[in-house]
């Protein structure tokens, strides 16, 4: 136990936690995205899929697990970023840069919190608000939300944020976990790009489809 706590207080241990929770969340996003695709088959198909999920007795457990993943990921993001923002009090007077960092890598601490704000909106929209209704048509709720210009903008912009976050995150997590053999480096990088593209296209296609066909 002691050694575990020491690990979690170290820079590398904390990065491990970020990587493990981040990759688990990535897996969740992929499954979530695949489920959303049922919407292309019509409202009924989507609702059927939602019913199937909701009737699963293990759903509350999965939701609790997901909540823990998010909370831990965010908590450690705060710890790591806090330290990183205070390790150089006297700033450079010229703009520092060797050309290796990217827009995605330097905005992780911005895209992350933006995703948190989105998460709150998203959970309100499709998870909490239906608890307050006696009867609801989830597919119709999604359609109404995404056909509204405000909803459309919030959702498409947030999917862009997921894309930026993931562009850096996937290969970064493998490097953190120590999987960085030169032989696998480009395989991991390309897998990350593919997953990012899949997520952006899969999630992002739906608001565009609904908004421009509505």
């Amino acid at each position, binding site marked *: 136990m002691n050694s575990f706590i020491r*690990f979690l207080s170290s820079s590398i*241990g904390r990065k491990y936690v970020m990587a493990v929770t981040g990759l688990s969340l990535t897996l969740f996003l992929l499954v979530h995205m695949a489920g959303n695709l049922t919407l292309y088959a019509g409202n009924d198909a989507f609702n059927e899929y939602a019913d199937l999920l909701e009737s699963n007795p293990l759903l509350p457990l999965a939701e609790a697990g997901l909540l823990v993943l998010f909370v831990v990921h965010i908590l450690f993001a705060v710890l790591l970023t806090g330290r990183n923002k205070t*390790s150089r009090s*006297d*700033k*450079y007077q010229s703009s520092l*840069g060797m050309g290796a960092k990217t827009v995605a890598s330097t905005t992780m601490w911005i895209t992350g919190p933006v995703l948190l704000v989105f998460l709150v909106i998203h959970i309100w929209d499709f998870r909490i608000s239906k608890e307050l209704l006696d009867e609801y048509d989830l597919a119709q709720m999604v359609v109404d939300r995404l056909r509204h210009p405000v909803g459309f903008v919030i959702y498409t912009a947030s999917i862009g944020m997921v894309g930026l976050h993931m562009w850096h995150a996937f290969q970064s997590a493998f490097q*953190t976990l120590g999987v960085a053999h030169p032989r696998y480096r480009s395989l991991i990088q390309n897998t990350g790009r593919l997953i990012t593209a899949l997520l952006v296209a899969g999630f992002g296609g739906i608001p565009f489809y609904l908004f421009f066909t509505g």
Partner: protein
Amino acid sequence: MIQKKNHGDLRIVLEVWRQNGPGAPGAFEEHEVMANEHMSFLELLDVLNEQLVESGRDPFVFEHDCREGICGSCSMTIDGKPHGPRDRTTACQLHMREYRNGDRVRVEPWRANAFPVVKDLMTDRSAFDRIQQAGGYVSINTGSAPDAHAMPVNKENADMAFDAAACIGCGACVAACPNASAMLFTSAKLSQYTLLPQGQPERDQRALGMVDQMDAEGFGNCTNHYECEAACPKGISVTNIARMNREYARATLRRRD
């Protein structure tokens, strides 16, 4: 006296950071220096300092020793790049032929809380020494040179250890890192032993000791921008950081207390 303009002469406008001590306020001072394209960047600073001394002013303090790219002392950030614009080149090996007549060049120290400014461009990098002392060694009896075949080492590991051992401890990785992280340095110093049979007895102790010391010194955490690798004058690879992360996790699992 009128100086004859020689072929290859360059007029350089230098903005150099002046700071009287740790925590003191600092500012750039502007000076014009006549350089020649054959000079190294440090020789340019020598010329500037000579001018300053002759006119009764304080020279700029900057660190230097070997002037051939092996000691790691010549720490300075030139136009936002640690060791200047040339790839895999220390400031002492940077030559003025990289510049054009009339160029304006800005020189400032490494900036990281773990590397406090001693004066002007000179920083205190003893945090690196303490990381090294926390595990960057092997406790074998060196004695006289053993027979080459007494301890077999596979070629791939020998090469990787040699590459890691090329680190000169200059601190450019910290200086270049957006988080002022020391993970490239620490991982190089860890890898050079951990990859070799001689490094096995203290393997776990080394990983735990060096990483914990690195954290205690106040460096930031790596977020995998890989700016360090791009800045490193010795081309140390970030695969060393991945190895260090593995080693630290492994040592944690194996520790008994």
